[in-house]
């Protein structure tokens, strides 16, 4: 907060005007330039006519809903799109991501979370060149998380996060085995060395802390996922 970024143009689209206004206030406070639209068609027109860098869009709207607008948008632009939705069903999320959305926020949302996701998406899109990145030699990169084994540094959206040595080791282990579910026992063995002997919950405690540091919404993580009753895993790379 307080950081004045470049003047990015953000389109906020929702049929509920109060929500658009609220988001406008929050995002303008962050120094973004806000365009508004109240249905899917207006959103598509706004993107066509203006130099928009990111779209925040509701799914359930009259005339043209968010999914339809999403499909049309993807025909003309590959700017990041974050869907706002009251639908919290898994299938709706998957549908949104499948038609080309980059992220989603469920209503009622936390303004801080929305801003964090906007920032994350913009940073990836503008500074990291829309997903074109080279694999660093001394570490791992997954999505917008970068781990440098040599300097023992971790960057999320290009910003360094400070991790304890144990957290760093756990993250490294999971990123190395990205896509694989590791049981608390295995993690304990590899990170602490030796048998867990009833100390498995320690692993969970550390992973929870880790999640709070690298995830925007620790309760709904994008990368560091809990596979309940089995273990933990790092999502493999970016989607698509």
């Amino acid at each position: 907060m307080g950081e004045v970024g470049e003047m990015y143009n953000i389109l906020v689209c929702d049929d509920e005007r109060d929500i658009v206004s609220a988001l406008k206030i929050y995002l303008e406070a962050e120094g973004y330039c806000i365009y508004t639209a109240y249905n899917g068609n207006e959103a598509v027109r706004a993107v066509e006519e203006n130099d928009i860098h990111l779209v925040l869009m509701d799914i359930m709207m009259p005339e043209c809903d968010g999914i339809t607008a999403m499909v049309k948008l993807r025909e003309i632009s590959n700017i990041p799109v974050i869907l706002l939705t009251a639908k919290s069903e898994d299938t709706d999320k998957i549908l949104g991501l499948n038609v080309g959305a980059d992220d989603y926020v469920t209503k009622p949302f936390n303004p801080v979370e929305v801003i964090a996701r906007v920032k994350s998406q913009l940073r990836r899109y503008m500074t990291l060149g829309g997903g074109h990145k080279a694999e660093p030699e001394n570490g791992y990169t997954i999505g917008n998380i970068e781990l440098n084994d040599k300097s023992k540094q971790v960057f999320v959206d290009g910003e360094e996060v400070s991790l304890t040595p144990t957290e760093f080791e756990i993250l490294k282990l999971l990123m190395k085995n990205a896509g694989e579910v590791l049981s608390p026992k295995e993690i304990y063995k590899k990170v602490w060395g030796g048998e867990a002997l009833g100390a498995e919950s320690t692993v969970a405690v550390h992973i929870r802390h880790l999640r709070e540091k690298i995830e925007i919404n620790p309760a709904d993580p994008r990368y560091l996922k809990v596979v309940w009753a089995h273990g933990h895993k790092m999502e493999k790379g970016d989607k698509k």
Partner: protein
Amino acid sequence: MKKLTENLGAKITVIILSFIAFAAALVSVITVIFLLDCDGYTKTRDEIRTDIMENRIGNGHIYNILEVYGNGESVENYCDDQRIYYTIEDYTNGGVIEGNYTGQSFIVQKRQLNLTTYEDRAYEDENGDMQWTSIERSPISITVYIPREALSGNGQLLLNVVDTAYTLRYAVIWILGVSALVLVVLLCYLYAAQSHRKGGVVALNHLDRVPFDLLTAAVIAIALLSASLIDAVVYSGDLFSIVILAVVLSADYFVALGYTLSFAARLKTHTLLKNNIIYKLWSVAAKGVKKLFGWVKYLFKNIPTVAKTAIITSAVALFQFIIIAIFTYYPAERTLLLFLFTALDTAVIISLSILLKRIKEGGEKIAAGDLEYKIDTKYMHGDFKDFAESLNNINEGLSVAINEKMKSERFKTELITNVSHDIKTPLTSIINYVDLIKKEKPENENIKEYIDVLDRQSSHLKKLIEDLMEASKASTGNLAVNLSVCEAGVLLSQTVGEFDERLKAAGLTPVVSIPETPVKIMADGRHLWRVFDNLMNNICKYSQVGTRVYLNVSERDGKAQITFRNISKYELNITGEELTERFVRGDKSRNTEGSGLGLSIAKSLTELQGGELKIDIDGDLFKVTLTFDTVQREVN
């Protein structure tokens, strides 16, 4: 036409006319038959006359003479009496034996050849007793000559009749045709008009009320009586008998007319069949038989199935025994019959067992929840059919009830989901604007306090809506459940890790016990986590500060048990069962945060995964036990 059918006078006139027509027709018929009999249409009047005279009068005289001659009496006296002439000749040589014919004029001559007479003679047999014997005389021929003046009254009458009949021989045919036609027309009218009374009423007279079979019997009796009367008088041919004949036939006509009219009346009023003694007797008997049959059926229906089976089986066995006993004499026959009957019985029993099997399979299918299944009742009777149909009906009732229930549950879930969506949008605005007001840093301390309330309550509302949706989905099973092998211990350790900070903040110390060997159960990790999450949330909220929380995973007898135990902050004056109801909370005042849905969701989700959630309350000790079947070791 209607009027004519209802007019009594017209009817009586028609009856009289019809009788006349009948009489005319009858006389004409008799005349025609008579004429045909004596070839009246082919011969001349004189030929007929001669025939009649010869056959009817001449023959009579010849037989009288033969009798007189045979008895040895004087033929001449007889012939003088009758004023006729005769000649008797010997048949073999033609010589005249006696006679008084000397060339007188006559109108009929009849000659009969080769007649035999007998003479009774007495003789003495070998014992000296007197015996009689008949001795045949030599055959004779008799010729009679009848002069006109010798004809008696009857003879004259016959001649007149023949003359008249011959004169009218073609007219009678016309008379017959016309009278028959008239008769038919009049009868048609009578039958049509029968029992129509004035004013269009169809009514029966006294005759029509007599039972028809009784009437028929009476008519038959009259017919027989008149037939015998006619038979008695018809050959005598005198005037008296003709009068009797006429009277009898007339009476018969009226009887027949009355009978047929009554028949018509009965047909019209549909009483022909019913108004019969036999019918009445039969219907009474039939009623009795039916009643008896119904009673037997009722009795049989109410006999217990086993008793019924015993009765039928014994009856069949007895019947077979009787058949064997009556119809067999030799051991071979007996054996054969016994074998046949045994085969028959076996076939019957097997076919019954097939039906039973069908019902049994249907019952099993229905018990297993196949609500579409219908037992085929083809070839089933009695108890079997009743039973199969009852099962089918149960099935139908069940499937209707279940469909209704599913429909209503789905509707409820949909309603809750839609309402939740609609609430979420305004709630988003509320939360956002409360947050914005907060950021404005109000000067007034009261406003700050109020905003905190708004903030807290809107967050609570958000939680409530989310819980409500989840509860409705979980309780209706409207949730995808992907069961996989899960490690209960791993999940518990993960949960404890997740709640580490909150437990510390609530001043609680977790005591975790997980066995070395992994306890594997079939569950959906995400749903099971929600169960643990809800239970741990409750523990953090309602546990007495400074106490320990015991979390346990154990395995015994193929069952995995996960227990959560804590000491309640509040007095629990409620049962475990009540707590899992929706919107029920330990504290009746509902002052604390929470939706009152946590335990209900936990229970529904557990049950969705095939587990069991049980709550025990022992004073302030609150214990939740989750029970799942463990996965057997072979899964590696």
